[in-house]
């Protein structure tokens, strides 16, 4: 389905995740962040979002454990930056697919 975010029409799935990674931009990220009650994005947020997009483009499966080990952010801070389900929220804001739910 289509949705207008930050004045741009983008493709999203039923849960609001962007389906085309290339349609993402920083304004869209900021708009989703407000919608998700993460609030204004600071430098640390951007650093994490960039890391997530990099990993995604390399085809690496994302996990909270992996992010904690990445050196970009520790898990405690990750929770502070993106409260209530940080990986799900950060992925949505980063414009990448929802992390595959574990089995």
């Amino acid at each position, binding site marked *: 389905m289509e949705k207008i975010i930050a004045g741009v029409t983008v493709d999203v799935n039923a849960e609001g995740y962007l389906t085309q990674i290339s349609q993402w931009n920083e304004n869209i990220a900021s708009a989703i962040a407000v919608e998700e009650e993460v609030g204004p994005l600071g430098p640390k947020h951007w650093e994490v979002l960039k890391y997530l997009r990099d990993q995604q483009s390399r085809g690496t*499966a994302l*996990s*909270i*454990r*992996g992010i904690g*080990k990445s050196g970009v952010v520790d*898990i*405690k801070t*990750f*929770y502070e930056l993106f*409260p*209530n*389900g940080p990986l799900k929220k950060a992925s949505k804001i980063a414009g990448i697919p929802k992390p*595959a*739910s*574990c*089995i």
Partner: protein
Amino acid sequence: MKRIVILGAGSGGTMLARHLFKKLPHDLYKITLVDPEARHYYQPGFLFLPFGQIEPEACYRPKTDFIPKGIQLKTDRALIIKPDIQQITLENGQHMHYDVLVVATGTHIAPEETPGMLGEGWRKDVFDFYSFEGAMALREKLAHWQGGRLVVHITETPIKCPVAPLEFAFLADAYFDEKGLRDKVQITYVTPLSGAFTKPRAAAKLGHLLEEKQIDIVTDFAIQEVDNAGKRIVSYDGIEVPYDLLVTVPTNLGDPVVANSGLGDDFGFLPVDKKSLQHRQYPNIFSLGDATNVPTSKAGSVAHFQSELLAANITRYLMGLPVRQDFDGHANCFIETGYGKALLIDFNYETEPVEGTFPIPGIGPMQLLTETRMNHLGKQAFHWIYFHMLLEGRSIPFVSPQMKVSGKKLNQITR
């Protein structure tokens, strides 16, 4: 002579070795299993040990019982895999060459990954039941425990047998009821997931069962530490759950041999193609069972289905034929719900667990996603089937490696 080396002689490694032994000419191929542990544990028994519903001696047999003469068993631990020179290094310092390598090293609990878990309360009021020692220690504890707050907890996912902690909560409910202690025991189920299970229809059903049995559930709980002195677990976002008795499933990690060889994912599991079980970069490396990163349950039933298909694929590889994309993620798990009943789920990569009949479509005798006595008898029979059929590389009648869609109510909404 070509050499096939299988690391790990647990469920998956043993079954695969026997399938290969049947398929390959013995004068051309030598099969070697490597495993440091002398006992073959029946891990599903660990669920019943704490409640005194199985005897410890019934939970293991010597590994040699299941390995026919002609398959070599090396009692040693693999430390490093060097894929470029097709060699592994063992703990005793020896090197072994392989033509085909299979990683079947399973997964183990790593309580040291969570701050405080191995603190002063470990095996006093903090227990696991995913190891034989843990289940035995908990058995002692439960025999004398007089009640309080029981917290059943999953540290992080994925874990092997993802339904086992739920089953533990259900069995605890019945166990304390039968002891006349249920009104003194408050049971809370704490999970990092957003519901009782990963797949929606089963999660709804199981969530409903928790409610029926008056077991509280705390979801989306990502543990930061076990506070031994304060007797509570604390999450990264500051939620606290107090306990008198904590039964946790610690982080499950792959064996260090995978990570130390630079081949692991974040949890030390080996990434392989989810349908062929072949390594993408090194086509002579394969994996099955809990050691892989494929997105299905880590369960004995999965290792069983995979072993048959993987034996065929390895044979094809050795003959220079392309491998097949045959494995569909098929998993089949009994879920004990207490009072002599159980539920059964059957699913794969594409199809989530739904209601229906199993294994014979339309007949059963087992019912999917529904609590019945017959399902419980099925789970009990699994003990015998495991030791006498599966480990010998035999199939269960009517149960195929690929999931059957017939007999399943795929479109009906359940609660």
